[in-house]
């Protein structure tokens, strides 16, 4: 390497390489630029998915037909689910913030395989293209729900195969990202950064990466079986060919339950970065935070059966799954206790990311507790497949991951763009978002308790009141999303310049300039202290 140049290195945004314009981004192997590619793709699909959700809520505001036909409604909730799960939430924090920050946070210049990293983004785009094809080619968009349950998915006219293939390709992209992250963390930590000096966000990426690597192939196997069944008439899942639809459900959830932890672990990681920074205090119980991350990743493999309590499994299997579902909540509880204890005797600076983190803790607890309700066998029998479940997983996936995503966005924004956002607008957006969120999803718990099944285009008059409130919540929520995104967009261009460490954070990303230079570090740092060492302040 050459010796220090006198002028500072250009930032990753200004850097001029071989390619110009958009090619400088879509052909870049810089982990930061790739992270940004993911950010813009994910935001796009999030907005599409959210608009679909909004339209569904319009339909549900009154019984009978309101704005669309049942076929359209069924196609909407299918596409909403596929996009939100596979194109937004699963890649979510790892693909955006993991890519951008992981190498910097562990003191590396890039991920272990930068080209593979760019390739993963192309695989992601390919997956999206397949999903788009499934909407327009052939006999019409899929209408099976994102779960593609057999045997209905084999009978429907919609384009199942491209949709399932798309889901698999998207999953495959996340395997590659996961593999890249694991190797990066094993091989490229800065000198002195032992495993237990690694910040918690990388730790959660580590847990997540292993889940991606081990669970996603199951989707591939399932897909091959679906293809074999449709083309060769080998009966795996379709009873009319001698198959078993329950087998499909097992395979589906063996992947898709751990996928929930793919979504939530990095969210917890981001929150674990934000709380110490704004409390100006070490995270409480660092090692327990690490252990609980690994415990969630591990136990999360063994609870998939809780999606199938009414499908007809043996009794022993059912209560084993129930008991494990209760136990997997314990590590999450430990995290909540540690976050709260971190605030205790801290010196708390009330900034936007911290407000987001607080909101996260609240909605995540609601999601977690209602998860316990659903884990309870007798309660599950009544609540399964009702709006209670819809509310529960939106609290976890949108409430948990979504809030953490926006928390992370507001926390690392000055680092990513080198500019600050308007705090007043940011807080207004948060308040709208929070109120809208609660108004949208809280009534669904009640609707489910009253017995309104999910995936219902139409409903009885008893469910009308709850649906009106819920639909109105959606409008407030969308207004909040709009305020947040517009504010961030404007600030990325016109916001005041940000310093290297605007929040007083201690992890390595705050030691490099904002926005970071192409090579991240002029000189690879040597780590001597823990990641949240505020003892000198």
């Amino acid at each position, binding site marked *: 390497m050459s010796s220090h140049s006198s002028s500072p290195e250009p930032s990753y945004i200004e850097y001029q390489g071989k390619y110009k314009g958009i090619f400088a981004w879509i052909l870049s192997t810089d982990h930061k630029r790739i992270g940004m590619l993911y950010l813009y793709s994910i935001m796009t699909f999030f907005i599409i998915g959210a608009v679909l959700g909004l339209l569904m809520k319009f339909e549900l505001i009154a019984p009978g037909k309101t704005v669309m036909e049942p076929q359209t409604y069924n196609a909407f909730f299918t596409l909403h689910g596929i996009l939100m799960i596979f194109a937004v939430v699963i890649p979510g924090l790892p693909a955006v913030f993991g890519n951008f920050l992981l190498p910097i946070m562990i003191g590396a210049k890039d991920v272990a395989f930068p080209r593979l990293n760019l390739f993963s983004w192309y695989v992601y785009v390919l997956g999206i293209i397949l999903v788009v094809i499934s909407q327009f080619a052939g006999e019409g968009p899929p209408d099976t729900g994102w779960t593609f349950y057999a045997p209905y998915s084999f009978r429907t006219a919609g384009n199942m195969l491209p949709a399932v293939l798309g889901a698999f390709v998207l999953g495959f992209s996340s395997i590659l990202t996961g593999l890249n992250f694991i190797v990066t963390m094993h091989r490229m930590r800065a000198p002195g950064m032992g495993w237990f000096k690694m910040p918690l966000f990388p730790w959660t990426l580590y847990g997540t990466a292993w889940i991606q690597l081990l669970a996603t192939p199951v989707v591939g196997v399932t897909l091959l079986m679906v293809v074999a069944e449709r083309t060769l008439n080998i009966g795996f899942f379709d009873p009319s060919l001698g198959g078993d639809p329950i087998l499909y459900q097992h395979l589906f959830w063996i992947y898709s339950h751990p996928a929930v932890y793919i979504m939530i672990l990095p969210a917890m990681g981001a929150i674990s970065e934000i709380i110490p920074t704004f409390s100006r205090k070490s995270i409480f119980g660092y090692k327990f935070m690490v252990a609980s991350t690994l415990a969630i990743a591990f136990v999360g493999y063994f609870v998939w059966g809780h999606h199938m309590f009414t499908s007809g499994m043996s009794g022993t299997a059912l209560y084993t799954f129930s008991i494990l579902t209760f136990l997997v909540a314990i590590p999450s509880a430990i995290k909540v206790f540690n976050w709260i204890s971190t605030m205790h005797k801290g010196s708390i600076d*009330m900034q936007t990311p911290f407000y987001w983190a607080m909101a996260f803790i609240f909605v995540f607890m*609601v999601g977690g507790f209602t998860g316990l309700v659903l884990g309870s066998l007798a309660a599950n*029998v009544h609540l399964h497949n009702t709006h209670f479940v819809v509310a529960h997983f939106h609290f976890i996936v949108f409430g948990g991951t979504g809030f953490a995503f926006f928390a992370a966005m507001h926390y690392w924004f000055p680092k990513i763009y080198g500019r600050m956002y308007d705090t007043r607008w940011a807080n207004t957006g948060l308040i709208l978002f929070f109120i809208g969120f609660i108004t949208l999803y809280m009534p669904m718990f009640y609707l489910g308790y009253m017995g309104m099944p999910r995936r219902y285009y139409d409903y009885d008059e008893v469910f009308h009141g709850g649906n009106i409130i819920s639909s109105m919540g959606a409008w407030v929520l969308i207004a909040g999303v709009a305020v947040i995104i517009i504010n961030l967009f404007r600030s990325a261009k016109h916001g005041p310049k940000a310093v290297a460490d605007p929040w007083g954070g201690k992890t390595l990303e705050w030691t490099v300039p904002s926005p970071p230079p192409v090579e991240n570090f002029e000189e690879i740092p040597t780590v001597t202290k823990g990641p949240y060492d505020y003892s000198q302040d």
Partner: protein
Amino acid sequence: MYSTTGIEASNFVSSFDTAFFSVIGISILLLVGITVLMLYFVFKYNRKKNKVAEHIEGNTKLEIIWTIIPTLLALGMFYFGWAGWHPMKNPPKDGITITTIARMWNFSYLYENGKQSAELVVPVGMPVKLKLISVDVLHSVFIPAFRVKEDIIPGREKIMWFIPQKAGVYDLYCAEYCGLQHSYMSSDLRAIPQEEFDKWYTDTTALASTVDESVPGAAGFVIMKTQGCNACHSSDGSKIIGPSYLGLWGKQHIVVRDGQDVLVTVDSAYIRKSIYEPNAEIVKGYQKGLMQSYDKVISEDDISKIIDYLKTLEE
């Protein structure tokens, strides 16, 4: 043994309530407690008041406490859920068995004496066992007032059971997504006192008596309504899932048989075949595999009544 004095709609309401409210109760306490604590810390240790944070890295004793206590709570919650659910999986020997046939998109009920009904009629105070059968895709019987639900799996026979404890009319929904008309797949559950039930059960003329025999095709119309044909076929010319009945009788149209287009005339034999072997010939422009065979469900006699009805719609 089976009390009829309980005020709850079914014998499973109280086990659900115990499981549900034990978890919800503890959860609300913890949710409120933790949230208040968080707000209190944020207020008390605000940087404006507390300039310097204390250096604390953790406390193993606390970690152990807040691992063990939630674990015990969770095991307690599990227990209530399990205790309430266990009897659901163990139907009693006595009681009546009703075969529940689910198809896209209706339920029909077949009683032990051969009586068929579109409405689930059950006696109060008697264990009712539903034998669940699906002829096409997954469905699920969900009776919110009774707090019971069981998925119906094609190719498997399953039993669900309950004791209705209060007379009344309740909703029964399909809770597993099954396609276009999923949200319309429901039926009424009517729980009536035993004597009334016995009368209803033994009265096999009940269906006939509601039909005005002098109106041509009326009986056929009732049969089709009971069987749920109307979920897919209209009588006014509009296309739902299958072709409309309007103008069907006597018309000539193209069907696909073994991949070949064939011109057929709609006559008795064709109608009969359409009902017993719907997938042998597919009307051009429609999808295979949606309509399932009604073999052994609809008698030859009923088919001729259906044909009488179709004749009234001849153009």
